[in-house]
């Protein structure tokens, strides 16, 4: 099936804070690496220059065959990355946000960042997203209570252009049996890539149209979580006139008819 709209510019911001080295479990770096690998794969071909990665205290990591220089995941750097990503996005452009690691149920909701005193509050995200007026936005929130970030995407992007996915309305959980990844993010990323990071196929193209839309990826991840008895409470919303109409059409390449 042909896309109705193919995105002109696509940017991504990947964020994993970690609080400290003692809470920054290895699976979070794997979550980022798997998603980065998916973005730069031949299926999606994101330009590496359009992907910003903020990870713990920074450093250079091998992601999808690329040496990726990550930025320290503190509040100032996250806001700067969002500002840069949103700047001059147009009506046929896509911004992808991806988070993993710890988050809190405080009001307002907080995404924990690097060092115990650093966090991003939900309204901070919304304020940055609102700085450009008309672009497509996909938020994938894997951190605990990430569902509390979804409305920042749907409320601060143009109607019919914002989709938010979250691993859980409560705490999100690791992937059994070894906790090498977070469960929902692992399955969601595998769905988008149509294979796991280890190369096993992920049969997520339910409509068999050759494209993975966000609803399909969500359904796949949700079903896999249920099968593995993960106690996440996933969530998906968009700001289309008919709820989830956009989620069923939005892909990382463009919009389905």
């Amino acid at each position, binding site marked *: 099936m042909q896309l109705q709209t193919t995105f002109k510019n696509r940017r991504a911001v990947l964020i994993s804070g970690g609080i400290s080295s*003692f809470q920054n479990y290895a699976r979070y770096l794997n979550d980022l690496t798997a998603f980065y690998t998916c973005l730069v794969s031949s299926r999606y071909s994101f330009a590496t220059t359009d992907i910003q990665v903020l990870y713990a205290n920074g450093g250079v990591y091998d992601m999808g065959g690329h040496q990726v220089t990550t930025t320290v995941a503190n509040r100032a750097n996250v806001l700067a990355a969002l500002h840069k990503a949103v700047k001059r996005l147009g009506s046929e452009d896509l911004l992808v946000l991806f988070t993993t690691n*710890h988050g*809190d149920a405080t009001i307002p909701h907080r995404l924990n960042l690097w060092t115990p005193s650093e966090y991003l509050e939900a309204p901070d995200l919304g304020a940055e997203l609102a700085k450009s007026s008309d672009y497509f936005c996909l938020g994938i929130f894997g*951190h605990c209570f990430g569902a509390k970030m979804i409305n920042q995407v749907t409320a601060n992007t143009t109607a019919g252009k914002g989709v938010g996915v979250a691993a859980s309305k409560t705490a999100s*959980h690791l992937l*059994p049996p070894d906790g090498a990844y*977070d469960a929902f993010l692992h399955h969601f990323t595998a769905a988008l890539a149509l294979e796991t990071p280890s190369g096993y196929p992920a049969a997520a193209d339910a409509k068999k149209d050759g494209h993975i839309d966000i609803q399909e990826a969500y359904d796949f991840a949700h079903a896999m979580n249920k099968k593995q008895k993960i106690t996440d409470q996933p969530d998906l919303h968009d700001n289309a006139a008919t709820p989830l109409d956009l989620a069923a059409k939005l892909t990382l390449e463009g919009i389905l008819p």
Partner: protein
Amino acid sequence: MIEQPPKHDEIEHLLEGNNLLDQIQERISEGDFLPGPGIEREREEELLSLPVWTEAVRVSYCNSYVANSDLRDALDRPLDALSFRGRRGLLLLIDPDSAANWAHACWIASVDVDQNQKIRMVWNNYPPLETPQKRLVRYRRSNDPRENGRLA
């Protein structure tokens, strides 16, 4: 990535010889603990319904004796309700959902080693603060067939 710290035989001996975990389990079942710094009053009712002591509970202890100044949570907030009067304390994390990312409900306990081994407990949504010198070690009860790591 950081390595897991080794177990501390003297502290494990204290935990085993005085049925401290049984006492802690009883305190949890009776709801005999205070809210920690991460617990907002409006969320107490919601979260209190979540944690129970099940087979999935994972107990960890700090790998050295602690002082009151060490009693902080991972977000570096003081755990004043755990303050003890003696010179040495034990610090324990009782995690009912160790497969979850933080924040999720857990219990933190201190044991006053020098003052009748009095136990003080809070429930919180983050674990204790760790430092290179004060690390949490997973505790495996020697009399628990599910926790037979040392027998293997």
